[in-house]
C-alpha cells in the first residue's frame, strides 16, 4: 500500500538519523575517543619495542574497534525507544526490515566510519607496515558493518529491558569472535607478506550473510520486544 518506493523510506530515515547525530555530536566522538585511547595506551603498558608492537598491533586495534562498536551499540535504539519514535517506526506502512537497514547504516556511518578514518594513524603508531596498514583499513571496512549488523539484532532483543547492557554483551560477543579472528589474522598475514585472499573472502561472506539476514531478524526481534 505504501505509495513511495522503498529507497525513499530508507533514505528519509537514514538522513534523519544522521541529522540527529550531527546535532548530538557526543555519539560520534565517544566510540572514536575510546578506540584511540585504548590503542594509544597499549604501547605505554607493554613497552615500545617495535617488533613486539608489530606482532600484537593488529589484535590490539581490532579488539579496540570491536569494543568501541559494542559500547556504541545501545545508542542505536535507546533514544527512539524512550521518546516513542520506535513505536511509530513499527506502525509505519513501510517494511520494518528496510527501516532497520536504514538505522543500521546510519549508525555505522556515525560510529564505524570514524574508526576507519583514524585507523591508519593508529597503525603507524603501532609500527604496522604499509601492506598491513592497507589491510587493516580493508578489514575494518568489511568487518565493522558486520559488527553493527549483528549487534543490532541483540539491541533489538534487549531494548525493552532496563539493564540490557550485560545481556547484550553476552549475546553479541560470541558472534563477534569470527570477525575478530579473520580480520586480525588477515592484518598479521599481510604484515608477513603472505596472501590474504582467503581471509578477505571469509569476511566478505560474513558481510553478505549479515547484510541479508540481520535486517529481517532485527525487525522480528523488535516486534517481540515492543509487544
Amino acid at each position, binding site marked *: *500500500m*505504501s*505509495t*513511495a518506493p522503498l529507497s*525513499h*523510506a530508507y533514505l*528519509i*530515515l537514514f538522513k*534523519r538519523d544522521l*541529522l*540527529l547525530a550531527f*546535532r*548530538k555530536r557526543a555519539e560520534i566522538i565517544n566510540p572514536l575517543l575510546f578506540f584511540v585511547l585504548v590503542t594509544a595506551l597499549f604501547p605505554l603498558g607493554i613497552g615500545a619495542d617495535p617488533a613486539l608492537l608489530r606482532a600484537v598491533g593488529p589484535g590490539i586495534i581490532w579488539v579496540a574497534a570491536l569494543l568501541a562498536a559494542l559500547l556504541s551499540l545501545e545508542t542505536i535504539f535507546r*533514544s527512539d525507544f*524512550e*521518546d*516513542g*519514535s520506535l*513505536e*511509530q*517506526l*513499527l*506502525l*509505519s*506502512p*513501510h*517494511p520494518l526490515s528496510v527501516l532497520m537497514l536504514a538505522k543500521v547504516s546510519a549508525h555505522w556511518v556515525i560510529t564505524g566510519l570514524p574508526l576507519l578514518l583514524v585507523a591508519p594513524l593508529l597503525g603507524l603508531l603501532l609500527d604496522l607496515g604499509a601492506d598491513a596498514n592497507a589491510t587493516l583499513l580493508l578489514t575494518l571496512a568489511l568487518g565493522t558493518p558486520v559488527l553493527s549488523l549483528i549487534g543490532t539484532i541483540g539491541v533489538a532483543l534487549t531494548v525493552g529491558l532496563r539493564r540490557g547492557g550485560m545481556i547484550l554483551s553476552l549475546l553479541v560477543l560470541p558472534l563477534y569472535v569470527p570477525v575478530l579472528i579473520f580480520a586480525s589474522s588477515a592484518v598479521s598475514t599481510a604484515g608477513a607478506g603472505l596472501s590474504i585472499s582467503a581471509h578477505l573472502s571469509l569476511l566478505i561472506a560474513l558481510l553478505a550473510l549479515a547484510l541479508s539476514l540481520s535486517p529481517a531478524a532485527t525487525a522480528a526481534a523488535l516486534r517481540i520486544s*515492543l*509487544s
Partner: protein
Amino acid sequence: MTLNKPVTALEARELTCIRDDRTLFSGLSFRLQSSQALVVEGRNGSGKTSLLRTLCGMALPDAGDILWCGEDIFRLGADYHACTAYVGHRDGVKLDLTPLENLSFARSLGNPDPDCTAHQALEALQLAGFEDVPTRNLSAGQQRRLALARLLITRARLWILDEPFTSLDKHGIAIVEELAHKHLVNGGMLAVTSHHPVNLDPGATTRINLSE
C-alpha cells in the same frame, strides 16, 4: 479487489489480554464503523493502554481476533498500518529536531495526505510560528500538540489515541476535540482512552469500561 467491498469497520471479537498472569479483560467484543468513536474507560492498570496497543497491531491479543474490513489486522500488516495513526503515552517526537522536521519525517514515513502539508497541520494545532524552534524548547503541552498534529498529515481512517489530553490546557483540549469531531464527520473512526470526559457526539460514541 472483491466486487462487494466490505464496509470499513474495525471489529474486535472476544479479545483477552493477560499481563503477568493477571487477566486484564476477557471476552471483549465491539464494532466500530465510519463516523463512530470508541471511548475506553477504566481504572489505572485496567488494560486501557494494552487494549489500544493491541488495536494498533503492536501487541498480539492473548485470545480473540481483530478484524479490519473483515480481515485479520495481523494478516493485513502494512495495509492496516497505512489506515491507522497512533499517538501513545510517549509523544514519538524527536526533541532535537524542529516541529517542522518532525512532521515532515512522520509524513513521508506514513501514508501522506496530499491535502494536508506539515505547515497546515502545525497551523491546525496552533503551533504556527514554532516551525523552526527546537522541539526541546517547547512546553509539554506544545510537544503533545505536535504529536497530535501527526494525525492530520497521513490518510489515516482510524485514530488510536492513548490519553491525548495529557498536559494539554483547556484551550488545547478544545482544539483536539474539534479535530476529532471533524474527523468523525468526514467518516473517520476514533478509539480513545482518557481520564478527562471526552466531549463527542453521544449518538456516535460507544463506551467500554474495562473495570466492570
